[in-house]
């Protein structure tokens, strides 16, 4: 059975079981429609992913619904009919749905792809690569709260035709948001249902809105260090490529490293450490100004 036929058959199976079709999400090159037997799940998806909704029906099916787990009532999350998790905790199931959507966006998108956040400042995209916990989501939220256009907090993909950072405005995932972000987290649907206990800020709720495709003009690698003063260090060209490669996907594909090095050849790259969000936001603004001036 071809993939498209299989997805159609899964959709028919869910619809014949009384499950409701939710929105189509355009997550970079991952094109998916959500399904659930609980309208609250689909409403939550719409509230969080409002910036990536698309008309029509997607190529894939991401579903979350009640199913028996042995003798207990449970929740199953599945992609194209294949269960990803079976759990009795709805909040764990929804967290898996959000994680899976992101993973599939990553797997489906080719070319230069980085584990990074990004925002538009002026006419350039600031790319913030970092491991989990480095502070990239908090920093991009801080930039967005100060009016920058939000592009993504997780995956930076460059458009092959022009090298611009493609918007991937998934909800910003903030573990424990600092008080400086109270303004943007207040409206988030945190703890609003049994499915959701974290803090996810929808992109459309950010003051700067969603940015347009923009060429990268600055790379900042943040490292959150509590109570440490904000410090920046410029990397030389070799260090820059190595640092970017640490956060790059698809490097094993032919020409992967060459494409990465070419895409960021003239883009200044810095490491930024510190524990102050306002200080880090100021530093990024200052570095952006320098980068634009030298360009």
């Amino acid at each position: 059975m071809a993939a498209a036929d299989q997805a159609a058959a899964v959709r028919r199976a869910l619809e014949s079981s009384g499950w409701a079709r939710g929105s189509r999400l355009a997550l970079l090159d991952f094109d998916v429609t959500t399904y659930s037997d609980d309208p609250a799940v689909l409403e939550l998806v719409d509230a969080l992913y409002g910036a990536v909704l698309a008309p029509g029906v997607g190529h894939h099916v991401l579903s979350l619904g009640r199913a028996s787990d042995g003798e207990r009532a449970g929740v199953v999350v599945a992609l194209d009919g294949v269960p990803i998790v079976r759990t009795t905790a709805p909040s764990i199931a929804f967290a898996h749905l959000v994680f899976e959507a992101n993973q599939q966006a990553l797997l489906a998108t080719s070319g230069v792809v980085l584990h990074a956040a990004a925002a538009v400042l002026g006419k350039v995209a600031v790319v913030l690569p970092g491991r989990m916990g480095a502070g990239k989501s908090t920093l991009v939220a801080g930039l967005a709260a100060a009016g920058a256009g939000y592009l993504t907090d997780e995956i930076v993909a460059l458009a092959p035709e022009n090298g611009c950072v493609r918007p991937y405005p998934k909800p910003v995932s903030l573990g424990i948001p600092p008080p400086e972000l109270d303004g943007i987290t207040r409206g988030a649907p945190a703890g609003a249902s049994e499915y959701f206990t974290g803090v996810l800020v929808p992109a459309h709720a950010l003051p700067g809105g969603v940015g347009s495709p923009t060429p990268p003009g600055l790379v900042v690698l943040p490292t959150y260090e509590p109570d440490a003063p904000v410090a920046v260090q410029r990397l030389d060209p070799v260090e820059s490529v190595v640092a970017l490669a640490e956060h790059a996907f698809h490097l094993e594909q032919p020409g992967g490293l060459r494409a990465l090095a070419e895409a960021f050849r003239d883009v200044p790259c810095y490491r930024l450490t510190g524990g102050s969000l306002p200080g880090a936001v100021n530093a990024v603004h200052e570095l952006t100004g320098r980068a634009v001036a030298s360009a």
Partner: protein
Amino acid sequence: MTSIACAPGARPRARGLEEAVGVDGEVLVAAAGEVHVLTPTAALLWECCDGEATVAELSAEVAEVFDQEQEQVLSEVVVLVGELEQRGLVVLEGSGQGPREPALLAPSASCASCGEGPGFEATVHVELGSVVASIGADATTARAIERAFGGRVVERAEATGPPLYGIVLPEARSGARSTPLARLHRGEEVLCTSRDPGRIVRALAAQLAIHALPARAVRLDSLVVGRAGRAVLVPVPPRRSAFLRRLAAVGCCAADVPSACVDPAPSAYALVGAAQLALDLTSLLEVAAARRLLDGEPPALPWGNYEIVAVATSGDPSPASVLAELVPLRHGAGDSEAAAAVPVLLELLDAVPILTAHDLDGIAGILT
């Protein structure tokens, strides 16, 4: 990375030359998930690794070009080529590496709360097509496993960690108030228990057969319940022994393992047992018979092929419930086994009714 010198007679061949990128006078190359920065000298040597010249010959050329002592250069080049080989940037031709061994199946990652699983006196490795599975057992049972698997038994020189499967056939202890049940483990998980060790022996064989299915067959998370050549696929019940007794009361029985192997063509059949492995279980069943505890367990479904006439769910009898309960949980994004199960199950749903697993009279009825 600890440097390992290669042999001067090795013939290194560079890998990934076409992927190298020059940045600021240095050469960068991605290999084995890392980016390596090569100095100009290392890059030059790497580019000269053509699979023809030996390391000693390359050293002689370098010594001549740079006007250096050949012995000194050789001592550095053997280390450098050794490092390149460790990083996956060269392969050493003629190094005597044989054909790749079948992959050894590993238990899934352990969690702290699960403990380490049982310990075993001996481990037997058996080849199952393109993979090798390890089986832990006591010494007597391990010898019987070796006889049963004959030519499929393979030696593994490297340390392989805990076995993927473990079979425990407890000795009957005279005077003891109770003896532990015979059981089959997969890693830390207990797949089956029984008072009849023979049942566990058959379950081991059937479980191993899952790794050597016909190409078009798929595995489902399901118990095969059957009678007279017909079968219903039922979600694995949490209290299996009670379920088996209730099944026996309506004249049905179930397969030994909590997995259904389904061959979709020409019509869907459940493959019960391990016929494809062509094993001689006589010696293993003799060990099991000597350790038999008590009678009284319902009989297992005999090995064979059973036409699938229905599927069942423990929730509402809907296609969504069938998919949610019977398709195996995905292990990683590239799990093709779980993905392959979906179209087979969807086609099956077009052909057979969905029953409720609690309705054993209904299941027995459709099997008649």
